[in-house]
């Protein structure tokens, strides 16, 4: 007989689900975690191989059904969700790259670990320049949770004291020496009133900063967490008499056997678009009509590559060139930095790289000569660009298309607009100006970005707010309509900013879970 005495049912096991499980079990609550895919065994499931040992020599199977996963290659192809098993749709000419992982741990297994806080330029965007709406919380509300998350994930970074780039509780790291190239770019950036910092990143433990090593093991150790793998959740069930969430129906990934799980509270942590799909397929929690609306992400791309002439022709060395730089948002902070777009962008930059052969219109010996000449002598920058929240960027259920488990799929409509294009032009022009001022030779300049979704930072679609008519969740990630339903992943975001959202998702999940536990204790749920 199934154990049906769960306090909380958590759908999803990535960063947000793992955090919820960690907090809630520590508070003594019995939790059930359902995950659509299997548990990974790093020893059993991974093997070191050379590219020539792979069936397609590293190209990957051309029919792997990973058409929108630009990050896929033959080494990692088996970790992504197949678009044949779990399809989705978008309008002709407006592709969306929905990049998914359904293994236990989700995308926390593979993220780049870049760890930033949002600032009040994002939390209070409407007050600042009217770009989007305000969140119902500010940086101060979330700061204590950010701090705890940063300590748990062992985030490194350099404190700068910049309001648009809030400092965190960083584990200390040696500053390290700077190459001549880094010094030169930094000096020129200062003249242009552009701040230059270093990347902020989570060290985690043993090279991994995932729910599978930082939160789920602790939750399991309490004896209060059950994890069911290969549980594809189809719908949230609601008690007809009370209107409260009563649990979920899920299907076994292999056999399609249908199962019902019950709990006093349901927490969605399946990732922005899967949680939203679940709400839409269940037809609940949508009195505002805003479930699925205001889909945002971040634009990645906008490549500018330059070479340091002194480092060419075999003269590159660590004292001359090498090391990374990070330029946090600097546009639209005040009237002086205002441009023809709203929001901002950051520029991650590497120095000491060798450009790809594709950038040189040559072949044969002439191409090899170019590659030899530029080896290790280049500086490469791109952008993390803000995307404004817009009502028309949305997802809805596509009743004509079902996944391998017979569950209706998502139709995703997301387009970048004039604001995003102007932002990219400004970024490319700024990088070019900066490189030239630093005495570098421009090799490539492009203000184009990848399709929406590419950054794997899909956010919004269940935005939080104080007004139930204008938002789906309250400021504690709790459904306005169904009090015992929480959504703790990126779907609660009101604005996305330029920052990798992971730290904010973790902090929000921690805060929501503590609130949930308190409310449950008070008998309010």
């Amino acid at each position, binding site marked *: 007989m199934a154990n049906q005495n769960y306090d909380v049912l958590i759908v999803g096991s990535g960063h947000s689900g793992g955090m919820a499980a960690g907090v809630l079990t520590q508070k003594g609550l019995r939790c059930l975690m359902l995950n659509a*895919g*299997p548990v*990974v065994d790093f020893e*059993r*499931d*991974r*093997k*070191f*191989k*050379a*590219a*020539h*040992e*792979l069936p*397609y*020599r*590293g*190209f990957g*199977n*051309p*029919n792997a059904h990973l058409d929108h996963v630009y990050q896929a290659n*033959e*080494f*990692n*192809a*088996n*970790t992504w969700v197949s678009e044949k*098993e779990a399809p989705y749709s978008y309008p002709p000419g407006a592709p969306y790259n929905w990049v998914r992982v359904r*293994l236990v741990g989700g995308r926390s297994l593979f993220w780049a670990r870049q760890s930033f806080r949002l600032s009040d330029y994002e939390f209070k965007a409407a007050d600042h320049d009217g770009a989007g709406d305000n969140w119902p919380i500010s940086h101060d509300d979330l700061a204590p949770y950010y701090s705890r998350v940063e300590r748990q994930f062992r985030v490194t970074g350099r404190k700068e004291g910049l309001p648009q780039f809030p400092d965190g509780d960083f584990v200390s790291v040696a500053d390290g020496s700077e190459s001549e190239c880094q010094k030169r770019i930094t000096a020129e950036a200062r003249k242009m009133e552009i701040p230059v910092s270093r990347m902020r990143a989570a060290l985690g433990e043993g090279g991994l900063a995932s729910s599978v090593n930082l939160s789920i093991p602790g939750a399991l150790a309490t004896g209060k967490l059950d994890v069911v793998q*290969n549980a594809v959740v189809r719908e949230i069930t609601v008690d007809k008499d009370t209107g409260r969430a009563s649990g979920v129906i899920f299907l076994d*990934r*292999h056999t399609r056997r249908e199962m019902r799980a019950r709990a006093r509270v349901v927490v969605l942590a399946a990732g922005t678009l899967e949680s939203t799909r679940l709400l839409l397929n269940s037809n609940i929690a949508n009195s505002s009509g805003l479930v699925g609306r205001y889909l945002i992400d971040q634009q990645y*791309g906008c*490549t500018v590559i330059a070479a340091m002439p002194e480092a060419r022709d075999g003269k590159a060395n660590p004292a001359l060139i090498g090391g990374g730089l990070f330029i946090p948002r600097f546009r639209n902070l005040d009237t002086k930095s205002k441009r023809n777009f709203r929001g901002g962008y950051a520029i991650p930059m590497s120095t000491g790289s060798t450009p790809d*052969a*594709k*950038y*040189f*219109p*040559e*072949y*044969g*010996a002439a191409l*090899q000569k170019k590659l030899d000449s530029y080896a290790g002598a280049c500086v490469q920058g791109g952008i993390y660009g803000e995307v404004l929240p817009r009502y028309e960027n949305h997802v809805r259920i596509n009743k004509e298309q079902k996944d*391998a488990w017979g569950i209706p799929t998502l139709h995703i409509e997301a387009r970048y607009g004039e604001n995003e294009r102007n932002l990219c032009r400004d970024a490319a022009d700024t990088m070019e100006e900066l490189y030239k001022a630093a005495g570098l030779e421009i090799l*490539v300049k*492009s203000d*184009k970005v990848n399709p929406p979704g590419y950054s794997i930072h899909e956010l919004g679609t269940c935005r939080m707010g104080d007004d139930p008519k204008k938002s789906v969740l309250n400021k504690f990630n709790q459904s306005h309509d169904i009090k015992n339903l929480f959504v703790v992943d990126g779907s609660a975001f009101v604005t996305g900013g330029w920052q990798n959202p992971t730290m904010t998702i973790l902090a929000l999940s921690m805060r929501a879970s503590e609130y949930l536990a308190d409310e449950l204790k008070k008998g309010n749920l």
Partner: protein
Amino acid sequence: MQRRRFMQAVTTASTAATAAAQQTPPAGEPIKIGTVSADAAAEPVSRFFTSRQLAVLRHLSRLILPASNGRPGAAEAGAAEFLDFLISVSPAPRQQLYRGGLDFVDAEAERLFAKPFPEIDEQQADKILRPLLTPWTFDPPANPRQRFLAELRADLRTATMNSKEMARATANSPRRRRGPGGAAPYWLPIDPTR
């Protein structure tokens, strides 16, 4: 099938299955049977390009990515033969791009030099290839001939860098770890659905 024969067949199959299930490996060291790759033991049979197209592709591979600095080029890495396989299992637009591109450069050789492309020299080939070279842009070239050359350059490089020949040639290089022919963690299928 008569009922008696059917039952006999079922019984035989089930007995065989049971017998197989009763096999137990001997105690001690696990049984390990070493294998070699198919590439080490046999040569690929071309299956997609015509022999003329394959000859054009081989000549292009020698011109575009020749051996240098003690490293194999595309010809030594068998890149043309590998691409014959890869393109054969690729979506139709890519197949079309390759076939069209190979036929085009071959026709240009006939038009300009009255010779098949595989028989023209480096300087003559340059007169056909150079106009097809384009500076890099985020979106691939709209012209299918230019796009063919852009993709071919990239594909030949990948097929060569990821070849066994390159791995051998760079085995002792200090920069090999993540460079040409280097090894990386490969994810096996994880609890796949059938």
